């Protein structure tokens, strides 16, 4: 693709180690971020932008290859061809333990079916989505 690239930096402070604070840092062709209002693609030369991320899958395109990463909310900023993603949690497909996630999902489903309280039901929404996204990512691999 184009000669110009953008630098993607993904930082998940809870997963930062002393060796490397970055979960991912690479020059890539294109990044597609999952924002609260929909997906947003970032190409080199984009005007500066601050955005709020939703739970979802971050797609990275580099030299005809596409890699995916589950990013659970946070913020992102584009400036001078650098995309910084700050999130509570960022996972590669291999980080996801399908058995555990399926189990959590089952527990959540049981909890939802047991209660009639709407507020309580909706409080499980994010956990639900988190599990679904993790499974979706694991399937894609």
């Amino acid at each position, binding site marked *: 693709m184009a000669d110009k690239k953008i630098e993607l930096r993904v930082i998940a402070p809870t997963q*930062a180690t002393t060796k490397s*604070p970055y979960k991912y840092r690479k020059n890539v062709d294109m990044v597609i971020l999952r924002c609260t*209002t929909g997906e947003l693609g970032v190409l080199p030369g984009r005007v500066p*932008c*601050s955005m*709020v991320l939703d739970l979802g899958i971050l797609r990275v395109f580099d030299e005809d290859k596409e890699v995916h990463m589950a990013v659970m909310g946070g913020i992102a900023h584009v400036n001078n061809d650098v995309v910084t993603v700050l999130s509570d949690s960022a996972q590669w497909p291999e980080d996801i333990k399908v058995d555990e996630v399926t189990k959590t999902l089952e527990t959540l489903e049981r909890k939802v079916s047991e209660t009639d309280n709407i507020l309580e039901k909706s409080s499980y929404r994010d956990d639900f989505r988190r599990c679904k996204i993790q499974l979706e990512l694991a399937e894609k691999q």
Partner: protein
Amino acid sequence: MPSMKAIKRRRMTVKNISQITKAMNLVATSKLQRARAALAAVGKPVQATFDVVYNTVNDIDPYAMESFERPFIAFSEENKIAEPPARNAAYVLITSNRGLCGGYNTAVCKELMKHAKANHINPIIIPLGSKGRDYFKRRGANLREFSAFEDDPTFADAKNVADQLVKMYETRNDNKAWMIDEVYLVYTQFHTVLNLEPIIRKVLPIDPAYLRRVVGTDLHEDETWEDLGFFSRPTAKPSSELNLNIEYEPGIDEVLRAVVPWYLCMFIHAALASSALCEQAARMTSMDSATKNAGDIIENLTLMFNRQRQSIITQEITEIVSGANALK
């Protein structure tokens, strides 16, 4: 003059104590290394967050903020918008959970007292660490406790505090006034093992002028970015011009709502790490001097003990000699 037995017992006690202080010194030394690594690990994420916050906040049009009910940003100095007169403040105070670390805890508490006395009436104090909590409880301060805080601060701890602070910032009290107008962070900055500095930093509302100073433009005379209490140098490029091209997705309000907790969280996380490092450094030096002092006391007691033993021997000899003379 105490008896020989008493001196012996005292010497034994001091010796035992010196063994404890020596062990504590060694433990603090090894913990210091770990805390140093932890602070270094915090550096990069803080830097990245700062860059994002700086770039997001720097170009905000001051007049766009006017429409917000509760702005997270206050423009000081150059772009001043009328400031509300009454100011309720909250101080987040970071101290340790354990004592025996010299003046470390009192230094931060006193700094807070001084600042609060000069600027605010009955501020809310949010202690992180039991020493600070006890200090202000004794003085009957307006305390608000968030949660128990562990010795090894994690990102989750900081996030918890940041979320609650934001919630407090957006709450009105009974008089329909805002519960808090300003949030200060009180922590200890590490320079060297012997140079620990208690610092008070305003973290809410965010002041773009302060951010600009950290990045390196508009720095006051004789000021370096280290004086501003930042932990690692931000990489954001300073620009003096307002960049009105910046976009906010979905909107400026939502973006600030997401960015501000991150800023607070990172700042608190770094301050916790810095304070934890200072605690170990303070403990190391104070335990080192305690061990030295114990050595001095042991020396004195030994001298006293020997002198007394000698005086008893001398006395016995005198008695024998005078007894022998009497028999002549």
